């Protein structure tokens, strides 16, 4: 058993036992605080500053070429704790510019009634395609309205810079061909 140390409490003085000095101190504290400026943000008119790493509504983003980055690997769907994400994978047409990416979501729904803004989808995404950005206020008149579909997700997401350009490099390599050919 862990050793416990019993601390002797200092007995209360008479003044302390009347409780009155404490009340006076308390009153002083509240009075001082009362004279301090308020920290209230007048919300709809004034907007908070959204920090860089804020976890707002999850969105889908495009890369600087305008290519949709999501390849519907469904990892986010898998990792999402409340099962808010629902993806129907699809194939990119052979004649498309990005045919070498092969795969893209046909449908991509995030149910904002279920989402808990945990950010795991962003964390898990191998393509850096899903980001929790700065939108923090979502509302709607029906359950359906609260489900963000693919189009809405791209509208919210916009374009973000891409550090890797993995698929651009891949295409360049493919065009160049194998070294021995």
């Amino acid at each position, binding site marked *: 058993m862990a050793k416990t140390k019993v601390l002797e409490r200092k007995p209360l003085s008479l003044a302390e036992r009347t409780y009155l000095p404490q*009340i006076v101190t*308390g*009153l002083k*504290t*509240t*009075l001082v*605080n*009362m*004279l*301090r*400026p*308020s*920290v*209230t943000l007048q919300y709809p008119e004034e907007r908070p500053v959204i920090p860089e790493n804020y976890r707002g509504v999850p969105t889908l983003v495009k890369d600087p070429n305008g290519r949709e980055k999501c390849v519907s690997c469904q990892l986010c769907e898998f990792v999402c704790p409340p099962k808010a994400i629902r993806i129907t994978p699809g194939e990119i047409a052979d004649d498309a510019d990005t045919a070498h990416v092969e795969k893209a979501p046909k449908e991509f729904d995030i149910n904002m009634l279920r989402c808990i803004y945990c950010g795991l989808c962003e964390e898990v995404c191998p393509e850096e395609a899903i980001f929790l950005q700065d939108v923090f206020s979502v509302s709607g008149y029906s359950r359906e309205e609260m489900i963000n579909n693919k189009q809405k997700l791209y509208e919210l997401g916009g374009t973000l810079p891409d550090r890797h350009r993995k698929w651009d490099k891949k295409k360049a390599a493919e065009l160049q061909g194998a070294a021995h050919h």
Partner: protein
Amino acid sequence: MDWFTAYMLPVIYAVTMIVVVMSIAGYSVLAERKVSGWIQHRTGPNRTALPIIGAIPVLGPFLTRLGLFQPLADGLKFLFKEDITPGHVRRGYFIAAPIIAIVPALTTMVVLPFGQYTDAEGVVHPLVLANIDIGILFILAVSSLGVYGIVLAGWSANSKYPFLGGIRSSAQMVSYELAMGLSILPVFMWAAVPEPGNLNGLSLFGVVQVQQGFWLAMWQPVSALIFLVAVFAETNRLPFDMAESETDLVGGFHTEYGSFKFGLFFVAEYAHIVIGSAVFVVLFLGGWNFLPFIPAPWPDGMVGAVMSVLWFLLKIFFFIFFFIWVRWTLPRFRYDQVMTLGWKVLLPLAVANLIFNTLLIALRDTL
């Protein structure tokens, strides 16, 4: 004209008084919200605007930001909200309870002096609806009726939390009523004393008049303290709001009430605060007297009367602020602490104080 003076004038006075007290009560609610906001670095209500007044260029937004229109909106809400009476309550008592709660609060002000009027001959008259000799007794008697409203509400709601709230409230009332009554006895003993032959008796006007020099709060600090604590307890204000105690009783006695009936309880609480403040000011803070040892600079006639009333109101406002200030400073007592404080501290202290003062007066008289 006789019937006018005899019947209509009192009615007009009474109505005016009710209006004044009720608006003070209403704006105390606003004050409560504002002050609590400030204490917590917030702004409090600052959005409600009246259509026309709110549109006046500088003034409108200013008033709006002060939240001055908020009580109006709150009151209207109470009035027009759907009035639900739960199915399981004892209907008659359930409806009667809020009325019983508010009536004593409004009745007590009948005997409350709120200013002075010095007529041409230099005789000082009190401004009061009914200047009865036993003013304080009347106040004590009537205001303690208010607890019936709460007890009834708790019982008739026929559900657990209100019931507990009602019980706590009655126990608390009984406990603190005693200390309160005993604490002010010395005040009146002294008030009756200074000039032999003074027949002030239990008249509140008399008490104010004695305080032209010493305020009784200085002369009788122990009484003042006990009375202060008891007033907090009697008005069910934090830190003594055992009857409501949201954390453990949801809403206490008014859990089952909504809309207008709840509004009545709400207003009654604040009316009690106003009246309680007024009584404290009258008894211990010199009423409308200017400052200790500084004779009232009020001129004779109407002007002086109005000034005295305003000065009195100012003191009341400060005291209401004090009520609010304490509420947002102190945490709620535990129920057993409330009882201990009432029975084991305040009551013996009040008795001791009484005996001490009696002896003192006896000593003085024999000297």
